[in-house]
């Protein structure tokens, strides 16, 4: 459990980090909170030649109120989000979701940007950002671009981020405080990755469509058409239930071992919709 030898860079500014990333394209990994990269390197499942530690780049930290959106810097730690009055007031769904992330020691180090860039399908943050209609801000030496979370997660632990880009922030449309939401997950132990989870976020001015996200099943968190069709109804009725079952069975056809989760998701869906009621 010793990593292969690697070169370590610790730039003090984003342009320096981007220059290094551009120079060592393909051979370098960005180190943020290190909660996933470090164990992967220790087990030699990741063997980067170079590690670019961005922890000294203060510009990447913090939560900013940008009018219609909140901008959360990539290097903002889970616990900083969890304790932020701005998040508590404007984005309680995100705070609730992050309350389910692992344990204090991990939340003290782990970052929102790291989680989004890793794109673990069972993790709370990518799924929640998708449910909130967030946009990912990616920076390279030449440009900054925004990627909708709908287009960001493109496969198992794979994203639309290019090799020379650093995920620098996530922009999330503010939600009216009175708007209900539902976050529900089932994990074997408190703090574990979810066996399955469902997030319901009704539409508002900054997010024109109702969003329902399922995570913990399949290669990425995904928006469920069956669940989104059920918004506005009287609870979770029989028709969307059947549609959800069909939707899930598409996933389980490729993953028989996960098929036992079907009743779990059905139960979670029912309970999630019950939570939306005032």
């Amino acid at each position, binding site marked *: *459990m*010793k*990593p*292969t*030898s690697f070169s370590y860079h610790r730039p003090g500014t984003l342009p320096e980090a981007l220059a290094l990333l551009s120079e060592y394209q393909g051979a370098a990994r960005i180190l943020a909170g290190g909660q996933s990269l470090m164990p992967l390197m220790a*087990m*030699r499942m990741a063997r980067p030649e170079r590690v670019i530690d961005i922890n000294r780049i203060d510009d990447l930290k913090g939560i900013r109120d940008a009018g219609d959106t909140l901008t959360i810097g990539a290097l903002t730690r889970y616990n900083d989000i969890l304790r932020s009055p701005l998040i508590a007031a404007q984005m309680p769904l995100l705070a609730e979701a992050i309350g389910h992330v692992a344990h204090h020691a991990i939340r003290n180090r782990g970052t929102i940007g790291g989680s989004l860039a890793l794109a673990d399908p069972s993790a709370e943050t990518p799924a929640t950002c998708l449910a909130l209609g967030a946009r990912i801000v990616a920076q390279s030496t030449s440009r900054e671009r925004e990627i909708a979370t709908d287009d960001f997660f493109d496969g198992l632990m794979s994203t639309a981020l290019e090799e020379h880009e650093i995920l620098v922030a996530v922009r999330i449309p503010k939600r009216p405080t009175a708007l209900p939401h539902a976050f529900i997950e*089932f994990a*074997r*132990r*408190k*703090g*574990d*990755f979810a*066996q399955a989870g469902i997030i319901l976020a009704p539409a508002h001015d900054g997010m024109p469509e109702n969003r329902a996200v399922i995570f913990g099943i399949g290669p990425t968190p995904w928006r469920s058409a069956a669940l989104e069709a059920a918004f506005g109804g009287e609870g979770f009725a029989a028709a969307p239930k059947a549609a959800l079952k069909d939707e899930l069975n598409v996933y389980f056809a490729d993953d028989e071992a996960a098929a*036992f989760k079907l*009743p*779990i998701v*059905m*139960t*979670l869906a*029912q*309970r999630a919709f019950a939570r939306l009621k005032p």
Partner: protein
Amino acid sequence: MTEVVPAIGRSIPRPRAKRLISGRGRYTGDITARRTVHVAFLRSPYPHAIINSISADAARSLNGVVLVATGADIAQHCKPFAGIHRLFKGMKAPDQLPVAVGRACWQGEPVVAIAAETRAIAEDALDLIEIDWEPLEGLGTPEKAVAGVVVLHDKLGDNIGYDGVTASGDIDAAFAGAAVVVQDTFRFGRHTGVSLEPRSILAAYDPSDESLVVHESHQCPAQQQAVFADLMGLQEHRVRVVCPDVGGAFGLKQQLYGDELATCIIAKMTRRPASFIADRVESFASDNHAREHVVEARMAFDPDGRIRGLMIDDLFAVGAYSQYPRSSIGEASHVAALTGAPYDIAAYQARVRMVYQNKPPVGHYRAVGHPIACAVGESLLDQGARALGLDAIAMRRLNQVRDGSGPHTSHSGFVLNGLSVEATLDRVLEGFDVAAFRKEQAEARERGILLGLGIANFVELAGTGAPYYGESGAPVTAQESCLVRFEPSGQIRCHASATDQGQGTDTAIGQAVADAIGVFFDDVEVISGDSMACPSGGGAWASRGASAGVEAAVRAGRAMRDEILRLAGLILQRKPEQMTVAGRVIRDASTGAELVPLKDVATIGHYRQHLLPPGTQPEMSMLRSFVPQNQSFLTTNGVQLSVVSIDPGLGDVRLLRHRVAHDSGTVINPMLLNEQIRGGVVQGLGAALFEEIRYGEDAVLGTGTLMDYLVPLATEIPDIEVVHVANADPGTTIGAKGAGEAGTAGAAAAVLNAVNDALALIGASVNTLPITPERVLAAIDQVTREDQQAPGNYK
């Protein structure tokens, strides 16, 4: 200094704990030696494969690599070994070597050893080794192994290492005349101990005097000394095994590991100290495993609930080899001994088969066999109660071995001494209102929540006696010894053969010696875990610390006290029996008058012998030993009670309440005892709901890290209430009984019974541990299919 008060019975904190929690632990990995080489092993990626060739030139030429040794290179320096226990007639076990030669028989088996200047370099070198593998079919299930799809070891003829029957009474008549017979097939997942400190060893060989000094994270230094000397052909008195602080062992650090023996051999080959510390990933693939039983069982009842007979057939799937030196048979033999043991059962038949398959060796893990025996017996009893429409608690009371009935010969032929099954059941139910629980259960069901209550009686084999390993042929002793030294300062040092991996055995021994002599606990220092500095003895296994270890200490302490008083009598011209040792002075036994400081007696005994009457030879240290000579095991008993809730929509089982009533005999240290039992319960709860090393049919390992192998965390564990029945062991001076197995022995069974009590509300049941959401949902799905009901609607 204040008056001395007895140390036994007080919750004295462990002196070691202060050191450990302040970061001053001295674990094997903390010990450094100059010029150490660090060893890493290339482990087989296949469950079963022929090694056609190994190309290691690139690894050898890597800068910093000191030695690359194949199995054949290592085998030049030791004998092969086979884990046969001769008490079990007809047992078969294959020869094994520290590192695979020609063929790998489990995924994780060491194949090549590399010693380098750092562990990182050794791991780099592993990447450079090329092996021409020829994969073979792997045996990954007990059924596949017993069917002999592949015969793992040609010399054995088949994969069955042992097949034996224990029987008493007329089993056919018992079942033929039964009002009700219940039967079930229980499956138990494969576990491992998951110690916080991984297996670690640092070996140093000195060619000038052919001596070997080994620091090893292990429970049994004396056994390891004998094993290393024998297998490496060294003189045993030139081998020293030191077990410094050990961060949890639970039985997994009780036997010999090939990679650890190989590390000693590498120290000899390189003439440099050699260190091997298992990492978390290789721990799962190479630490001793345990459990993995499939038990078919039947129980026959009279109409009033009396048990007429019990039949079990235990298929116990071990690894590719039988562990050395104790063998892997222990768990199955305990299942045969203990299933149904809390009850008077006239007819019994237990068949056990131990089968080899392509997995790491099975060793002894806390409460060897007990959890299997308890779950099978207690679940069948509950099933019988349901079939007969009787109360399961009343049925236990009807069948329990009576308290105070003297030595009881169990259905399996074991002599069980001084059991208190009736008293412990009464005690666990004290303050627990079963009727109120049933009411709560009915109300919860209205809300869609299934509540369940489970009870599990168990008998424990705590403290192995001479016959069990005496007959085995292995260098394993059931005897414990303690050397007590009356130091020049007037304080006490004792050197114990019993060892301490965090249980607090040292503390208990210190308490026992303090009281036996009459000194303050703080004036006693206990030294253990060193085969050279301590007398030879068993170490730590099977809850022997408080029973055998403490008994030896009490005897040595009393002998030391007698000698101190003899010397004091000679100095003071008084009769020894008219004086007592009281803290740091000697007092008149009847008046309490202070006669002489203890230190003065020590000074004369060590430095001023000329002041004693002519011909007096002071003896300033005393060695005493204790072995349960004619009993295979010291025995005790307990009971556990569990309350669970099940969310049927998720298959989620939550633990609400857990209670243990245990007969620990005389309680030496209530805090250490209770925490010992709680820790055991947590491991049992892990077995009940979480822990399982998963393998495919072909024996490919599916659980590589602690993200896959779930151990219970504090958030999953309810408050564990522990109460006692103090029924002193008649066979020892102070009557303390072992308690290390108790928690693990009964916890999973109590939870299984609670889950089935809850599931019975909807007509479902489970019989496989761990009880995962997947298994609960499958059980519910089965009944809902029958009922044509949608999942999640149980009202």
